[in-house]
């Protein structure tokens, strides 16, 4: 009896320890890849067409899902916002509510979540398959550094694309909110825009939103790249890596959003 309890506890602790060591190892490997990506980034800018090509695949190809989602998010925000604001007689503030929600939070956060699901998974699967089919090894054997040639251009493409996508998300969201608030509900056109103009601050709202989306761009793209680069070279390995990209990116974005928001409100 005592032996059985002792064995169970020992096994539990050893499993816990192994998992912790594995997580720490992966964190270290991820940090190392991030560092090497920065070190070997020169080529991404010297041969900017490599980065631009990836901006097309990660950014432009994500436009549809971003724009459609933004439109609906904006419309729902206007509906919910009007429903609450009219109770306090301030339905003209609907424009401010929609704009601030989008620029400060929903624009960067939802864009990052969609980016992780659309572009992040594509990046992980592509790199993972390149590894499984020995394309990265082939590059190494040709004396071409895969981090400089494959990883770094994708990283910078993600960092460039994310703020642009977030800005588009916010713009389209505001347009969706406008269409619901003004033509559909009947809020005054002038009040909608003038309140927005008066109450959305460039430094506190827009710039902070851009900073958030830049941070999310770094985090989401790096997670996607690392998961692909570290994936076991099998179909199952790539599939698990793709799933991990979405899960880890989403949780990281939400956690980082809280941290960044805390700092931005304090400073």
């Amino acid at each position, binding site marked *: 009896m005592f032996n059985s309890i002792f064995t169970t506890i020992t096994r539990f602790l050893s499993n816990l320890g192994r998992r912790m060591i594995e997580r720490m190892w992966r964190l270290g490997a991820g940090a190392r890849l991030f560092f090497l990506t920065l070190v070997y980034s020169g080529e991404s800018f010297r041969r900017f067409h490599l980065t631009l090509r990836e901006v097309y695949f990660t950014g432009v190809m994500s436009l549809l899902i971003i724009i459609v989602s933004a439109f609906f998010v904006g419309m729902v925000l206007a509906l919910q916002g009007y429903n609450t604001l009219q109770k306090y007689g301030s339905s003209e503030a609907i424009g401010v509510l929609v704009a601030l929600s989008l620029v400060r939070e929903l624009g960067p956060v939802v864009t990052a979540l969609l980016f992780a699901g659309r572009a992040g998974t594509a990046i992980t699967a592509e790199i993972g*398959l*390149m590894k499984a*089919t*020995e*394309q990265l*090894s*082939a590059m*190494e*054997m*040709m*004396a*071409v*550094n895969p981090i400089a*040639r494959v990883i770094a251009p994708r990283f910078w493409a993600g960092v460039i694309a994310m703020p642009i996508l977030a800005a588009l998300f916010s713009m389209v969201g505001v347009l969706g909110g406008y269409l619901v608030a003004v033509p559909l509900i009947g809020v005054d056109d002038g009040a909608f825009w003038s309140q927005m103009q008066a109450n959305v601050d460039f430094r506190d709202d827009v710039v902070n939103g851009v900073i958030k989306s830049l941070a999310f761009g770094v985090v989401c793209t790096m997670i996607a790249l690392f998961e692909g680069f570290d994936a076991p070279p099998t179909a199952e390995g790539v599939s698990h890596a793709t799933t991990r990209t979405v899960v880890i990116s989403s949780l990281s974005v939400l956690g980082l959003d809280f941290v960044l928001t805390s700092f931005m409100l304090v400073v």
Partner: protein
Amino acid sequence: MTSNIVEIDNLSFGYKGRLLHKNINMVFPRGKVVAIMGGSGSGKTTLLRLIGGQINPVSGQVRVGGKVVHEQNRDGIYELRRKMGMLFQHGALFTDLSVFDNVAFPMRELTDLPESMIRDLVLMKLNAVGLRGAHTLMPTELSGGMARRVALARAVALDPNIIMYDEPFAGLDPISMGVICDLIRSLNDALGATSIIVSHDVHETFLIADYVYFVANGEVAAEGTPHDLMQSTLPFVHQFVHGEKDGPVPFHYPAGSYQAELLKQSAP
């Protein structure tokens, strides 16, 4: 200058304390086609990776052009690799690039040649492997044999001194196999290069190799010219060359008593 372009001295290599290679010695003379043969899992491909500096030995040395590979820093290894070409088992073509761009890849990455010259060189390499007419195709549009030939054109794009082939005949139909076989020999002679072939296809390898090493149980089990090895009475070589199902390499994976296992009541 030594006549051997690649030398392996007392090389041992393993993972997690288990040695895959034990004190292996091999030499690869300039201008020759040398084959490394052995069963699946005998560490043949690992030897190519050791020569290419992708992994480091536990002890011993691999020297390429007189330089110890694992003592080189990253730039030194890349310098050595510029003189090597490697054909991977499944080609490892870049799937997002066309046949033309795949062959042009090492030229664009490692040289400052003008695009017009790269175009001519790529077409020459593709013509040598008989696929000039396929230069606009994507890798997904190629058969296994064609992909292997494009990969071969890419491997020799910069006229390397050493060309390494990892299972070049695996999974090919007899016609493609014959074509690849012929190309390996003719490209080696035309470029004055040294070819290292890793394979377990006896017939094709013996047709083109000048010298053959047999690897088994982590050691060089036999070596010699294809003719010598065909006549060999060594049990392992005899079993391998003649494709006998049982011999020093057992048919059965090590297991306990067959009878006892069948009579056992519980599930395994």
